[in-house]
């Protein structure tokens, strides 16, 4: 069942809102015109991952001759970082940058009439459509 979370305009860009719906904690993220949603549980040790810091992916700047000029931030990938232990996840895919098997649990999300809706299993909330 769809539950209205907020207006898209209420989210910063990049930005997020973590809400609780029927006991389930869900993080909704905005990157430009896109929105994403994940369960607020880190696959590592169940930490509140969506409440962490957002930072661009760090990259090693390796030139074609094999030399490194150090670390740089990605211009395209923004990560959400679990505040318990620092596990990072691509906000667009929910996938850990190093071990692709480690990923967040995705929650269906969509934008309709300027508002963000997530789909949850239970259908008793007052904000449901």
């Amino acid at each position, binding site marked *: 069942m769809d*539950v209205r*979370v*907020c207006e898209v305009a209420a989210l910063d860009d990049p930005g997020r*809102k*973590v*809400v*609780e*719906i029927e006991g389930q*904690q869900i993080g909704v993220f905005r990157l430009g015109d896109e929105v994403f949603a994940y369960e*607020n*549980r880190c696959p590592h*040790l*169940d*930490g*509140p991952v969506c*409440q*962490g*810091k957002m*930072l661009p992916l760090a990259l090693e700047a390796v030139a074609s001759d094999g030399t490194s000029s150090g670390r740089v931030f990605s211009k395209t990938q923004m990560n959400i*970082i679990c*505040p*318990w*232990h*620092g596990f*990072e996840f691509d906000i667009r895919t929910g996938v850990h940058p190093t071990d692709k098997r480690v990923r967040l649990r995705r929650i269906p999300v969509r934008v309709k009439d300027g508002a963000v809706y997530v789909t949850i299993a239970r259908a008793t909330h*007052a*904000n449901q459509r």
Partner: protein
Amino acid sequence: MLDRAAPKATSLPELPEITAATDTRAYLARAAVQAQSHDDYELIVDVDAHLQEGGFWPEIIDLLGNDVLKQTAQAMLRPGSLPLINMQPGMTFQAMAGRIPHQSGPQEQTDDPAKAGHRFVQIVRRTIETMGLDYQVIFPTAMLHLGMNPMEDIEVELARAYARWLIERILPEDPRIIALLYLPFNSPVECEKLVREYGDRPGIIGFTICAVRHKGVHHNQYARLFSMIEETGKPLVFHAGPHWDDPSFTQLNRFVSMHALSFVHYNLIHMTNWIINAMPERYPNMKVVWVESGLAWVPFLMQRLDHEVMMRQSEAPGLKRLPSEYMREMYYSSQPLERNDLELLEMTMRKINADTQLLFASDWPHWDFDPPSAITTLPFLSDQAKRNILGLNAARVFNLPVKRLRPRAKDVLAARAAAGVA
């Protein structure tokens, strides 16, 4: 006041970003939920948690017995600074540039100390009750480096001031908070004085050698100290730590590299000296605990020393058994538990007799902490092994009564719900 925005009538309950100022109870809220899974366990003991000295350093240096050092430290004191501590302030990368905020704390609000107790005690109580612990053993953080301080008198005086701060200010406020006596190991005679003076004080449950130092633990100058400790029946605990300035580690260009090796490095060296010099034969009743190096190093060293000793018996003539057999009788704290390969972890736990020798440790509030669920969710441990590791083994090592002190998990969650927090 907990960190939670009050829900408006028409809006969903919202959870804010977690920062260094987040209340411990909100930060660890998920641990309170996890605690329900093992709420019937007899005892939960966290054998390694930490004081972040920054906010409390003025109180500790105020207790320095040496007037010159006290005046020196107070003259150097700035907000958040740690005069006399040999750490490079620009090299503290633990919090990963804000990615792991709790490492930068504590910055949370606490209540009036006149009514609610010492600020540190208030914060530890929040941790204990949220994580679901009966006891928490407190270690210092910045003081872990003092073994490398070239001014030996600083280690001695700070060890004494820290002992007084714990014994006079902190431990009397809550019996669930317990600690070890920091031994200024670069000064053996001073260690003996401290053991004699403070070793039997309430809440002092053992003695710790902060392992970051270049001292052979087998040296004869420590013989009297070790005999004294053995007679107390309390354990000797080696607490590992990081030290980027160690010459070998200056080759490592990232904190993660140094951190991965440094903690293990010092315990490898001290354990090797302890075994090859047959200290378990010389102090057969000494309980020895190895803290904060994880577990993966132990089977490596067991194999390595067994292999070499079999060929070079003349260099380890005090041994009556294989090194691994002595090591299997020592105690190990669990954190940071290397959980990525469960097959290897299971084998490791079998090799160290984890059922009877492993002690749960959180290392909270450090960046690589483990909640009790790091143990309870391991699929290969029996229920009894989990009970032992989470508390019953520690009760035996630290002479603690098996008596529940923690609130029921459902009561902790109910209180949070009543206060309107997740």
